[in-house]
């Protein structure tokens, strides 16, 4: 557990599956994917189901054969090494504990394969069980402990052999919401303490944001954007990323006057504004303006006139759907001062101009 951490690099990785309907066609699970994970970092692969994130993880593990491209763990190209010789650890969505072995034997399994002495195995297993706070359950079978405890056993089993990389395949998705939040903190703490390079697959954006050093957003086998949670949330490159991380309204500007140097000069709802622009925006091509629901502020003397269409109360915030300039827009009001507003009320709002962002695409709802 105190070995020097190594990085992971994936270069131009391609994986195709034949499509079911048309044999000539094929589906890309990985379409020329290149990424790198620095030693000791936790990187999340985030995307909707079917985006290829699990396939990518399984190729790093060695369970899936890439069609082309290279995978490096440390300095070693591993795509021709069988999974049992790669020295990676993996946590599965279903935990995949050995049902016929006790917690102790589950955790000891990998150590036994390394031909350690009995005494050594016992000590290592004990210390990892202590770290995970499950030492009391050593002689129980997996079906005799709770989901959260099974989770810890799975993690203990994965890290006890000191793998060079730890792979997580949606490990928290089988837990209920409360436990999931608690476990992701725990997981992050242990990962940091052990200092192990980790690749983490999830479709839950808040989980990704909570635990990662870097987030990689994937869609249809392609990496859409890489960065810290904050970078991705604040500066999405396209509509897909903007809509996948957090919520976003996409509004077609009245006019785009110029785009240059990451800035755009636009007219929005009749007002001339300078907003940030994605580097993918090109002058003359259709673009939309992203407005996050929390960046719309209801104000008595606001710049834009609006009318409340409907509202819903969520405790922390009130969700308003409002019509601005003929477009329906979602707003989240965290101030609790506008609770008295009724459907049909005419109001005015301001936008947090710094948070607006011009993205390529049209204003159709599909992203």
């Amino acid at each position: 557990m105190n070995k020097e951490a190594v990085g992971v690099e994936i270069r131009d990785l391609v994986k195709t599956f034949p499509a079911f309907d048309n044999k000539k066609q094929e589906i890309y699970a990985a379409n020329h994917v290149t990424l790198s994970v620095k030693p000791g970092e936790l990187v999340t692969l985030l995307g909707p189901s079917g985006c290829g994130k699990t396939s990518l993880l399984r190729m790093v593990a060695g369970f899936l054969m890439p069609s082309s491209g290279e995978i490096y763990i440390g300095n070693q190209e591993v795509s021709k090494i069988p999974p049992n010789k790669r020295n990676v650890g993996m946590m599965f969505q279903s935990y995949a504990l050995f049902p016929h072995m006790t917690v102790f034997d589950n955790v000891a399994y990998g150590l036994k394969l390394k031909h350690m002495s009995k005494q050594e195995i016992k000590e290592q297993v004990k210390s990892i069980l202590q770290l995970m706070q499950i030492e009391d359950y050593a002689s129980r079978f997996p079906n005799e402990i709770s989901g959260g405890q099974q989770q810890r056993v799975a993690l203990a089993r994965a890290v006890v052999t000191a793998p060079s990389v730890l792979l997580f395949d949606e490990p928290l998705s089988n837990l209920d919401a409360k436990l999931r939040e608690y476990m992701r903190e725990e997981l992050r703490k242990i990962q940091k303490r052990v200092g192990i390079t980790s690749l983490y697959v999830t479709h839950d954006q808040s989980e990704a944001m909570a635990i990662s050093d870097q987030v990689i957003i994937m869609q249809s086998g392609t990496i859409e954007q890489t960065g810290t949670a904050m970078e991705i949330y604040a500066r999405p490159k396209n509509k897909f990323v903007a809509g996948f991380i957090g919520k976003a309204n996409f509004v077609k500007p009245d006019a785009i006057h110029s785009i240059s140097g990451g800035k755009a000069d636009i007219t929005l709802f009749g007002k001339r504004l300078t907003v940030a622009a994605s580097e993918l925006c090109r002058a003359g091509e259709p673009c939309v303006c992203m407005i996050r629901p929390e960046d719309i502020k209801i104000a008595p003397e606001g710049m834009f006139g609006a009318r409340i269409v409907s509202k819903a109360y969520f405790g922390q915030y009130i969700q308003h759907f409002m019509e601005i300039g003929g477009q329906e827009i979602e707003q989240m009001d965290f101030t609790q001062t506008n609770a008295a507003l009724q459907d049909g009320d005419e109001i005015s709002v301001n936008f947090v101009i710094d948070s607006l962002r011009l993205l390529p695409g049209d204003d159709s709802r599909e992203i």
Partner: protein
Amino acid sequence: MDSPGMARSKHVRSEKRKEFFMLLKQPGLLFAIIAVLAILIIFCIYPIVRLFLSCLTDKNGQIDLSNINYVFTKTDFFQAFWNSVKLGLFVGLMAAIVGYIYAFAITRTALPGKKFFNVMAILPILSPPFVISLAVMLLFGRSGLITKTLLHIRGNNIYGFTWLAIVQILSLFPLAYLNLKGMLETLDSSVENASRTLGASRLKVFLTVTLPLSLPGFLSSFLIVFAKSLCDFGNPQVLAGNYNVLSVSAYLQIVGLFDLKTGSFIALSILLPCMLAYLIQNYWVSKRSFVTVTGKATGTVELIREKKIVIPLFIIVLLLTLFTILLYGTVVYVSFVKTWGVNWSLTLDSYQFIFKRGARAIKDTLFLSAIATPASALLGMLIAFLMVRKSFFGKRLMAIASIIPFAVPGIALGIGYVVSFNTRPILLTGTAAIIVIAMVFRTLSIGVETGSNSLRQVDPNIEEAAIILGAGNAKTFFSISLPIMKSALFSGLLNSFIRSMTSVSAVIFLVSVNWNLLTVSILSEIESNRLGAASAYCVVLMVMVVIAVGVLEAIVNGLFARRRRSYE
């Protein structure tokens, strides 16, 4: 730029190449795959190919069709073929109907004594194939208890279509029953409930919903029984009389006329309708199945409680069961009677006789089955593991080869083994090995089937977890897969043991002076009209099967017991 098609073939080729390299780095796995393929080719495919060739060629290996001409013109082949098919169709239909009634009564109605009826229905599968034939001879034959002693009918002739059909229906309907029971249990009962809530009567629900939905299951049961009836050798050999069927006529050609070629051809001709039934069953009927396994608990079946439905079904099921009990009871009783039909005093004479004369056969059967059973079950589990979990070249070949010895008529397999392994390099005839091998491969597909089914229900991540921790393929198989497949292993062991102990047709040409088998002894006792001894053999065989169930269960549980230790 590459067209999509070209890109695909390029990718596929490069993946295949990488897969191959990966395989080279796992010599154990590679060796296992090659070894399994090799033995499957030698013992499953080669004998059948040889059988074909031996019918079509002369001594010098030239193509020679005069043999076929001889069979068609000089023997009553067509009569036998038609007889076999007619018998198969009738037995298939009746067994499917009886099986359906039985399965419907047990799965859909509030029938009393379900567990008991269920066990009784399975009994004929667990017992030697001609126990029922024997019992019918004892009860209804020339000196039968019912025909002669009770009804004073002299010389009642039970040899021929009628009684052969009855016996086959009784011994084969359990297959239809199990198949239909499984199907009715998995058929989503909420559609039946939906039909009821829409106001349909019970009869209307049955005719418009249950029956149409279970038709594929009915058809597949029919086809299974049809094929089994065609391949059956034991019952026709005892009961067919002048009603000439293919399996018996193949046997007679070889044993009576020493004409291996004609016998081979006739045995092969059984293959054609059998394979046809098998193909229809696998590729046509199974695609039309309405069974839906969703993993979601569907509403429980609302059992039918109306007396006017339950009581008639109960009477049918009860009569059938009583008849089965009567048959088995007769065999047991006869084994303790001095001379059936003449002297009814109880004695152990029959047992003394068989333990003196047949001790060898009993010992041999037990010994050979005890070797064949674990070999067959383990090989079956290994093949299941490879086929479900690994991707490699020749997977399809492996699947097909492992099912051939099970799908072909036993008599064809037996003759195939004789013609294939009576010369060097593989000279096996007359040895114990050839009997064991025949048993192993005859029962192999049971293990493959149960193993694959159970493995498919196991989360593959569990094995991957072992692999990623550093376990090789062999380690994963023995420390993870096999213990998890425990119950499949048990039923595989049990099934192959029962089949090995009770097989007749596949081994009848393979026994020799040195190695004899119980079933063959029973057959010869029946032919010599020593029915008391035959009955005693049957009882011994059934007792051994029952003991084996217990022993196997203990062994499997002991081997793979979950061990809890304290770690302080």
